[in-house]
Each structure stands twice: as C-alpha cells, then as structure tokens.
C-alpha cells in the first residue's frame, strides 16, 4: 500500500466543506510525515477517548467559529466542558477528526464510499492528494516522552496534541489492531472530506462493510457508534442536498445490513421504532438515522461483549427512538425537537453530574452512598429519590457546611436535572459516566507519561541550573580574587612590614595574634576601598577568604613550621611511622577492628585521595575543609555499605584511622599544630566535631605500635 492511496481526498465544492477539509487536513495530516504504517497507526485511531477529549478541548476554545458544536459530542464535556449539545454516546469518540469536521450522518454514509482496498479510486476521482501541509509538517514528537503543546490554544495545538496521543494510544493497542488500520485510516479520512457529489460509486460501501465484518471486535468497535441519530436528524437538514443523493445510492447496502442486524435483542426497541418503515423515506434524516443504527447493529453483531456497554449508552437514544415510534411521526419537526430535548437533558445532566463528581471528595466517594443511607437522613430521603440524588444531597450538605456558594448552586442545579430522571435513566447516566471514564484511561495514561516527561525535563533543567550556578560561583570567586590582588598590590609595603613582624614573634600566641590583627587591618582597608563599596555580603566574605589565603601564602613556611627543622623532622618521623604501619595494618587488623559490613568498601580510595590533597591548601580554613570532605566521604561510603543502620562514631573512627594510615599525608603533625594555632578559635559546630575526630585519630595513630 503506497503513499498515493493512503489519503484520497476529494475537493469540496462548497465553502463549508472546504473549511472542514482544511481543518481535517491539518488534523489528520499530522502523522503523515513518517512512513505509511505509522501514519495509519496515528490517524486511524479508532475509538480513542483521548481523541475526543482533545477535540473537546478545542471545542471549548473555539466553539463559535467552527459551527460544529453539535458534532462535538460529549467528549468536550469530559472536561466538564461547555458543549451545549451533547449526545450521551460520547463514546463514539471514534474518530477525532470525524467529530471535528463533518456531521456523522454524512460521514457515515460516506464511509461506505471508499473501500480501503480500492486504492486507485482516490486518484481516479480527482482527489487532492494530501496537501503539502502534511508533508511540510515536521515529524511530530515521538511518542516518548510525549510533549503536549499548548493544550487549549485552538486549532494548531489541537492538531499537534492529536499526534502524541494517538501514538500513545497506538502503542497500547497497536498489536491488536494493526491489521485493520489502513482500512480505518482511509475511511476516516475519506468520510470526513469527500463530497457526496463526486462520489463515483456506491459499491465500495458494500465492500467496506464486508471488510468490517471480518475485523476483530476492537476494529469493529472502532468504527462503532460514531454518530447518533439525533445529531443526524438535526444536521441532516443542513445538507439535505447531498444526503438525498447519498441515500439513494446507499440504500442497497444499508438495507441489507439493516436486516441482518436486527435480530439482536438488545435493540429490539429500536427495531420496533424503525424497522417498519425505513425504505420509503427519501428523507435524509431518516436515512441518516438508519445509517447509524445500522452501524450500531453491526457492532453488536461483531462484538457481543461490547453490546452491553453500548446498550447502556444507546439507551437514551432508545428512549428517543421509542418516542419517535410513539409519535408516529418519526420525521416531524416536533419529533426531532423532542428527541433532541431528551438527549439534551440527558447529556446536560451528565455534564452537570460530572462537574459535581469532579468536586466531590474522591476519597469519601465510595463510602458516601452507604453512609447516606445508613445515616438515614430519613426525613430528607424521599423514597423516590435515586442514589444519585442522595449522593448529591450529601454533597450539597457538605457544600453548605463549607459555605461554598458556587458549589451549592452547582449541586442544586445538578440535583434538579438528575431528579427528573427515573431510576433507569439514572443508571444509564452513571453507566455513561463510568464508560466515559473508562474510555479516557488511555488519555490519562498519556497525561501521566507527559507528566513523567515533564518531570524528567524539569530535573534536567534543575541539574543544568546547578551547573550554571556552580560556574557562576567559581567565576565570581575568581573575580573576587583578582580584585583582592589589586587591593593587596597597593599594600605591599604593609605586607612586608607584617611579615617582618611575624618573623620576630616567638610564641605561638603572639603569632596567632599578629595574623589576626593584620587580617583585621586588611579587612578594614578593604571595606574602605572604592572597589568594595557596593560589594555584597557574600562577596565580602569571599574577599576576606581571598585576603587570608594571600596572607597565609606569604607567611606559610613561617607559620606552618614555627620551629623550622624541628617540625620538619618530627613530621618526617611520623610519616615514616605511618609508612611502617601501612605495611602491617590491613582493614581487618585487630588494632582497628573495622566492622565486617564495612570492609567491602576498603580501602576507601576516594577518602584517601581527599586527604592527600591537604597540603595543596595553605590556609587553615581550607585545610579543615579538606579534612571535613574526607570525613564526609567516609561517612557516605559507610552509610552506603550498611543499609540497615546509620553509621556512628564506633564505625567511623576505625575507618578514619585506617584511611589516614593508608593515605599517609605528609606533615600531619604540623598540620594539626597549624590549624590549632590559627583556626581553633573559629571552629564551631560540626566542623569542630570532625576536627576533633581527626585529631583523635592522629593521636591514636601515634599510639599504635607497628610491632604489634
């Protein structure tokens, strides 16, 4: 099946048709850029509630211009929508495009004209083969993750929404339905667009029907209740001209179909109303209605398990039809009005009830009804009241309790509408709503996936933001450092003076005090400096750190080794001691006794590499930060190893000792002394704790004897 035959579109003669054509093209063309199979999967989606929902969205946003309100069946009320004319059989959802574009009656009979198999037909009848739009349209978002584009923004969004949804849907069911796709694809397209006047022949209809009969139930259902008699009768008058012609040609096949379909008991009432006299009527309304009914019967025959559901939705129509027969004037205007009326009130009630259900507490919902009866409310519960009314009364009571005026008005109105129905209709109402809900499951699934996709994107963006912020931080810090360098260049003389004074100090206390004084002096100078007048608190903090770094760099040797060679020698000895230990000490050495659970991560190389960098830092603050990072790395690894409990000091200390022995950072003792001299007073909180653990570990290492 080549691309050429996939969408036979016949040019519409009248404006209205043209308008629809365009709409349809943009609608159904969405998926057509990819290969044929996919196109079919996409555009031939059968009874997809999601589709109808989508169209419902647009219906609310562009009701007037399209003048096809009556086509937008229930689907729009799925959203508590605004459609004024709805039919209870919203499940007809069938072809989204269908709804949007052409009246079902017309569509339906037109369906017959294009046999999917007679592929040459499209071109032979002067089709506009897929306008460029279809190809020009960029491939629509792949199904996963589906990206819903601006949902309710009118036509375009609607079309774009169409695709991802369809794809999602396709994934759900495509194995089941694939074989019937092409068929339906062509049907839905052609039915929407084809102008009856150009129809070449009615024969294909038969073929199509036959083809449908072969389909699996799902496929047949897809074809399903795509229109309703009431709509047809309403709409039929508009396009009488075309329908007249159509009815003539179609009669042979639909009559045949009709007869074959009748026996199904469920619809007996319908047959009563209609089977007596469909033929003589050239009237388009009747024809259209029958046409639809025919379709219904077809469904019932092909998919018995769907009958039950269908009958539920059909029932309002049944009623309408019964009315028709009762009136004995099936095609009179009054009948039409009446039919329309009951249908309207049903769908209206359904819509309102749906709204009420929307706002109801969904958790309390299931227990609400029994609660109502149990609690009695015997005074208020008129035995004639059905459960819906009971439920609504409970809701109303709650709304009154909360003084939610909006809600009260809404519920009261719903109650009014619903209470007019008898129990049977109410059950139908509930069933119709339940069915709606069920039908929307794929759409909900799609929304869920959308949400997942969005969340993934959000997480990604957050990650990106973090990265950018980090970059910003680094850049800021560098900028600050440069500014500080500029500042300190002016104060070189002072700096040299300080270094000289520092050299003169002998006692550790004096040195600490000298450094602190000089830093304070520099901080003050910075605060007075022009560059720093408008610096933020954070920038000043950074600047102070930069100044400290700069100063400590200049005096590092003097500060780190106050006793010069003595300190260096001591460090060397300790380093050698640890080196000896590292040959003996293993992770499960008895001097450490690291708990068994944690041994898997030994020898904690990431913690070791953290502490090995400690001599790259010159300020005591940076050194402490380095130690902290090592400690938290160890803690992270420990909590990773033992999922059952949180590591405490009992677990941590042996590992810390082990890591220190293995890493054996040089100048350990001088580091401890340096930090104690120049930073101890500024240590606080957690920093203080980890520093304590570090010094404790160093102390402990001193006591371990490698001979043991």
């Amino acid at each position, binding site marked *: 099946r080549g691309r050429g035959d996939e969408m036979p579109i016949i040019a519409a003669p009248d404006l209205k048709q043209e308008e629809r054509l365009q709409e349809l093209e943009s609608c159904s063309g969405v998926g057509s850029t990819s290969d044929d199979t996919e196109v079919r999967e996409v555009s031939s989606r059968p009874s997809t509630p999601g589709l109808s929902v989508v169209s419902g969205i647009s219906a609310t946003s562009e009701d007037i211009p399209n003048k096809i309100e009556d086509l937008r069946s229930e689907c729009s009320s799925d959203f508590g929508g605004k459609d004024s004319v709805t039919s209870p059989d919203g499940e007809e959802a069938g072809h989204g495009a269908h709804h949007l574009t052409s009246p079902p009656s017309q569509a339906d009979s037109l369906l017959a004209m294009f046999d999917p198999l007679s592929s040459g037909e499209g071109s032979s009848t002067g089709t506009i083969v897929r306008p460029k739009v279809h190809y020009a349209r960029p491939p629509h978002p792949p199904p996963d993750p589906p990206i819903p584009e601006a949902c309710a923004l009118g036509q375009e969004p609607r079309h774009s929404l169409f695709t991802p949804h369809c794809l999602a849907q396709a994934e759900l069911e495509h194995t089941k339905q694939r074989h019937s796709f092409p068929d339906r694809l062509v049907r839905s397209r052609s039915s929407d667009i084809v102008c009856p006047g150009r129809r070449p022949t009615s024969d294909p209809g038969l073929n199509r029907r036959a083809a449908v009969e072969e389909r699996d139930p799902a496929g047949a259902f897809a074809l399903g209740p795509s229109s309703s008699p009431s709509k047809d009768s309403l709409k039929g008058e508009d396009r009488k001209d075309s329908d007249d012609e159509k009815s003539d040609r179609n009669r042979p096949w639909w009559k045949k179909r009709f007869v074959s379909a009748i026996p199904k008991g469920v619809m007996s009432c319908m047959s009563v109303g209609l089977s007596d006299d469909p033929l003589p009527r050239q009237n388009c309304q009747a024809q259209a209605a029958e046409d639809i009914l025919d379709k219904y019967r077809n469904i019932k025959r092909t998919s018995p398990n769907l009958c039950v559901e269908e009958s539920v939705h059909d029932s309002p129509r049944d009623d309408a039809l019964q009315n028709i027969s009762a009136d004995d004037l099936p095609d009179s205007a009054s009948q039409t009005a009446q039919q329309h009326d009951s249908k309207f009130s049903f769908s209206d009630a359904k819509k309102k009830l749906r709204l009420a259900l929307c706002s109801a507490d969904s958790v309390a919902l299931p227990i609400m009804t029994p609660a109502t009866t149990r609690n009695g409310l015997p005074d208020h519960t008129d035995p004639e009241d059905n459960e819906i009314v009971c439920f609504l009364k409970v809701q109303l009571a709650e709304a009154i309790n909360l003084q939610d005026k909006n809600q009260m008005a809404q519920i009261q109105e719903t109650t009014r509408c619903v209470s007019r129905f008898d129990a049977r209709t109410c059950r139908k109402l509930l069933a119709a709503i339940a069915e709606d809900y069920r039908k929307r499951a794929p759409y909900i699934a799609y929304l869920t996936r959308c949400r997942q996709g969005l969340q993934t994107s959000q997480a990604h963006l957050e990650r990106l933001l973090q990265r950018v912020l980090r970059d910003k931080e680094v850049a800021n810090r560098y900028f600050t450092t440069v500014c500080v360098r500029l500042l300190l260049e002016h104060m070189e003389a002072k700096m040299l003076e300080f270094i000289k004074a520092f050299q003169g100090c002998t006692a550790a206390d004096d040195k600490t005090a000298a450094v602190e004084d000089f830093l304070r002096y520099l901080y003050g100078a910075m605060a007075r400096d022009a560059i720093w007048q408008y610096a933020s608190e954070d920038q000043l903090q950074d600047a102070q750190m930069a100044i400290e770094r700069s100063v400590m760099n200049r005096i590092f040797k003097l500060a780190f080794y106050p006793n010069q060679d003595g300190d260096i020698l001591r460090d060397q000895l300790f380093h050698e001691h640890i080196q000896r230990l590292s040959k003996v000490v293993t992770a499960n050495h008895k001097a450490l006794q690291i708990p068994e659970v944690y041994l898997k991560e030994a020898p904690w190389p990431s913690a070791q590499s953290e502490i090995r960098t400690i001599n790259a830092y010159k300020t005591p603050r940076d050194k402490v930060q380095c130690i902290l990072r090592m400690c938290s790395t160890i*803690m992270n690894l420990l909590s990773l190893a033992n999922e059952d409990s949180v590591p405490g000091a009992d677990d941590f200390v*042996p590992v810390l000792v082990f890591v220190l022995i293995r890493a054996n950072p040089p100048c350990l003792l001088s580091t401890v002394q340096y930090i104690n001299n120049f930073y101890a007073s500024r240590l606080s909180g957690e920093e203080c704790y980890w520093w304590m653990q570090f*010094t404790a570990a160093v102390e402990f290492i001193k006591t371990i004897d490698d001979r043991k």
Partner: protein
Amino acid sequence: MASGGSGKTYSFKVVLLGEGCVGKTSLVLRYCENKFNDKHITTLQASFLTKKLNITGKRVNLAIWDTAGQERFHALGPIYYRDSNGAILVYDITDEDSFQKVKNWVKELRKMLGNEICLCIVGNKIDLDKDRHVSVEEAESYAESVGAKHYHTSAKLNKGIEELFLDLCKRMMETAQAEERLKGNGASQSASSRRGVQIVDDEPQATPAGGCCSSG
C-alpha cells in the same frame, strides 16, 4: 563549646560515652530523628547530631557528639569530652562489663572536669529486661553516689529518651545559670575560674591520658 549563657540561647555540647554496642548511636538517632533501625533512614550519619530545644522559654542548641566506644579508643577520651557541658554514659543492662566501663568513665570525668559536667548514667535496652545483668538498685545507688542521674531507656521502644535529654538540658542550664551568676559577682575572677579550670584540668591531664592508654 562552653554554654553561651549570656544570651537567651544556650549551646551545649553533650558527649556520648560508653562501650561499643551499648546503643549510643541508636539512642541519639532515636532522639534526634525518632528512628530506630529504620530501613528508610535518611540520616547519613549519627555521629554528630544537633537538636534545637525550647525549655521554659529559653532556646537551647544541643550538639550531641558520638564517640568511639571500643576499648582501644579509650585513650582518646580527653579529646572527646573536652569542653563538654554534659556526658551521657551508656551501658547495656544485659552486659555487666559495659556498666563497669561506665564506672571508669565517671571516675575519669570527675577527675578531669570535676562537677562542671552534668553526668547521666543510662541503662539502655530495657526491652531486654529478661536478660538483665545489671540490677536496677545497684545502678541507681551507684549513680547517686557519684552525683549522676540514672535513666532507663530503650531506643527500640523509644522509652525514657525524651526525659533523659530534657532532664540533662535542664541541669546543664542550671549549671550555666549558676556560672553566669558567679560571673555577675566578680567578672574577672569567675570568668577565669571557668576558663581556668578547664585549661588547668585539660592540659596536664591530656598528656598523661595519651600516655596511659596502654594501661587503659
């Protein structure tokens, strides 16, 4: 780490001492996070935890320092409990040895820090009362004899833990307030007394403690 008694906010350092496996970590985890051996623990570590309290209108910041309880780390004690306002000495009621260890800690703490530090002796794991090896009377009378308070707790059942920390905080506040009053009387003298005692106590002790590790 001394109490910031001057303002409305007190900051206390409490050190957890006791043999390994007596449940120090569980105790503090239960107190700060109300968790016990939870599979869904979000806390990464339980060795340094903080808790903010409000006691009789005064804010208290509690920093709880967990320590390694294994015998071989006993020598590190002075590093652990330096500048502590309170110590919680935990033993396992099913383990006589752990109670002996508590006694050692009490001796050391009293020697080093005198009465500056508030001591709590805690018999943990009372959910295992049937295996009790440390009698209630013995433990309580001992605690009284050394001026410590005794508590029975179960981290597993979350028993007695709130009381333990609340009582301890109140006592530390009293100590801090008494100190403040002392400061008020003779600023320089008392200030030096607090600092002085610590320095004098700590430094000479720290060295021998490090040295005597082999004995401990």
